């Protein structure tokens, strides 16, 4: 029996043009189609796999505007059991620290959590710090950047993979927090039965005040501020390599110089 919380975020679809709002340099959520972040689909998949092997319950926790309903419904239609949705105008412009605080309180409303699963970074902000901050706030061991996870009895083991350090093996006793990377699994499609069932699953709606965070959150209280932003420069022309019998070597050298291999 593993009681799992999965953190999910609704993000602008990476296929659409993503912008910051002109007024306050916060994410312009209206400008793009919004979807459940793909890394969160993987986090949910991992939670469902663990639940299917050990029994348990999967609760999704989401901080985001009302339209994040769609992302939550997708998580529920994949097979999560219930959801907690913190939605409040006051959270507009919340930074990483605030978001982590809100998440910590929201996770606290779920009883007897054994495991928290997050994506390693959201595809919009790409800060990648929320899992670590949240683990600190909750006083839980953090096992981040997991490409493989096993839960046995009261312990969780992960294979952690990062570009700089390669692969490390981590182990912790539950409760713990893990974040997963793109290699963790291939998420399932929601089935139509799942889609029909999702409509009836409980979604608890909370405000900042419900969590006792009134007046502490939002752009005005953020520790970091975006002062300005510029569109990314147009792509430069590619580099051309003429093959004089050593094309393969040159390509490999180039990739190595870019730290790609």
């Amino acid at each position: 029996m593993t009681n799992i919380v999965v953190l999910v975020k609704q993000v602008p679809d990476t296929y659409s043009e993503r912008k910051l709002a002109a007024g306050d340099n916060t994410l312009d959520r209206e400008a793009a189609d919004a979807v459940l972040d793909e890394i969160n689909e993987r986090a949910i998949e991992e939670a469902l796999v663990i639940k299917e092997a050990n029994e348990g319950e999967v609760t999704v926790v989401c901080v985001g505007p009302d339209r994040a309903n769609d992302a939550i419904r997708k998580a529920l239609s994949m097979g999560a059991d219930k959801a907690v949705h913190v939605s409040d105008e006051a959270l507009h412009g919340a930074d990483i620290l605030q978001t982590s605080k809100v998440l910590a309180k929201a996770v606290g409303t779920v009883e007897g959590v054994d495991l928290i699963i997050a994506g390693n970074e959201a595809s919009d902000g790409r800060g990648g710090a929320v899992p670590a901050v949240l683990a600190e706030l909750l006083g839980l061991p953090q096992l981040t950047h997991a490409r493989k996870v096993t839960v046995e009895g009261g312990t969780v083991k992960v294979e952690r993979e990062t570009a700089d350090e390669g692969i490390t093996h981590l182990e912790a006793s539950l409760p713990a927090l893990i974040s997963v990377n793109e290699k963790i699994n291939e998420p399932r499609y929601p089935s139509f039965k799942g889609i029909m069932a999702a409509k009836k699953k409980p979604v608890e709606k909370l405000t900042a005040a419900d969590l006792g965070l009134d007046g502490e959150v939002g752009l005005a209280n953020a520790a970091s501020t975006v002062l300005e932003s510029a569109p990314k420069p147009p792509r430069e022309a590619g580099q051309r390599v003429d093959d004089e019998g050593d094309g393969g070597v040159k390509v490999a050298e180039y990739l190595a110089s870019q730290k790609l291999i």
Partner: protein
Amino acid sequence: MAPDPHDFLAVDAQLSAEERDVRDTVRKFANEELAPNVADWYESGDLPTELAKRFGELGLFGMHLSGYGCAGTSAVSYGIACRELEAIDSGLRSFVSVQGSLAMYAIHRWGSEEQRTEWLPKMAAGEAIGCFGLTEPDSGSDPGSMRTRARKDGSDWVLDGTKMWITNGTLAAVAVVWAQTEDGIRGFLVPAGTPGFSARAIHSKLSLRASVTAELVLEGVRLPESAVLPGATGLRGPLSCLNEARFGILWGVAGAARACYAAALDYSSTREQFGRPLAGFQLTQRKIADMLVAVNQANLLALHLGRLKDAEQLQPQQVSFGKMANVSAALEVARTARTVLGANGITLEYPVMRHAANLETVLTYEGTEEVHALTLGAAATGISAFR
């Protein structure tokens, strides 16, 4: 905001959350797992056997039926799923139509409780395939003239006859076979492997190649009384099933039309002749505009009929309207799109010729275009010109 060229009338904005979720799921599945392979399946004239399991896992089979392992979605959700599947290929949609709307619906609507519990859960899961045998070599548009006979022998039934053009015939674990009896037409569940029953694949098709079509032969096939569908006597039985499948078709072809339009729009904006993209010529824009109108009208019509169906107000004559109008529109769009792609348009590299060829089958099966016109004529004038 300017209208979206791919949903110009914002028809999909009318969908409920459930319907949007179904659309997104099928579209993603179709793009990831069907689109990359469909040209190969079409060329080889075969479908991989795992496909049934995959469709079953998603819940595509009998999705708008209730209970017995079926998802129980709205009719519009079912229509949307057909639309997204047929945007890839009519053969894939046919697979789902035959399984869900013909074979499973027949059992769900007209079957006994034992028949439902025996067959529907495994058919919904894609573990058992069904087919639907109505058409015969000498009986197509006029199914009342069928020659397949079922006669009573003690408490058994004995069936003799031949069924032709039966989709999924060689894949099926169970065939729903319609036969003449002393009391009129009745439906029978014939399990594969029953002595005297055989299925033979029909090859050399130039249309609907990503679909299996077969001839069924019944020679003294002996079945127990429990094999007959108790609820249906007369043509009403098979026609009620066809009505369900036609509903899926009128949605499906809106998807095929959309795919052809999208291919033409994309191609015309990148292909240059006379120093500018094809899309910059007035004649091409006329084609684009005509296709745009046809695709959006087809979608609107499908959604309207879907809402009527969910309100239990949809009449069979209105389904005929939808089948006739949308298939003709889709075929016209496919042919127009084909011209925009020039020589590339005739290859399997692009979807348009495949769709155009498929739609020739769709025009004919499930009531030919002429028969639907006669149905509409009869409904409007009160005079039947064919029955």
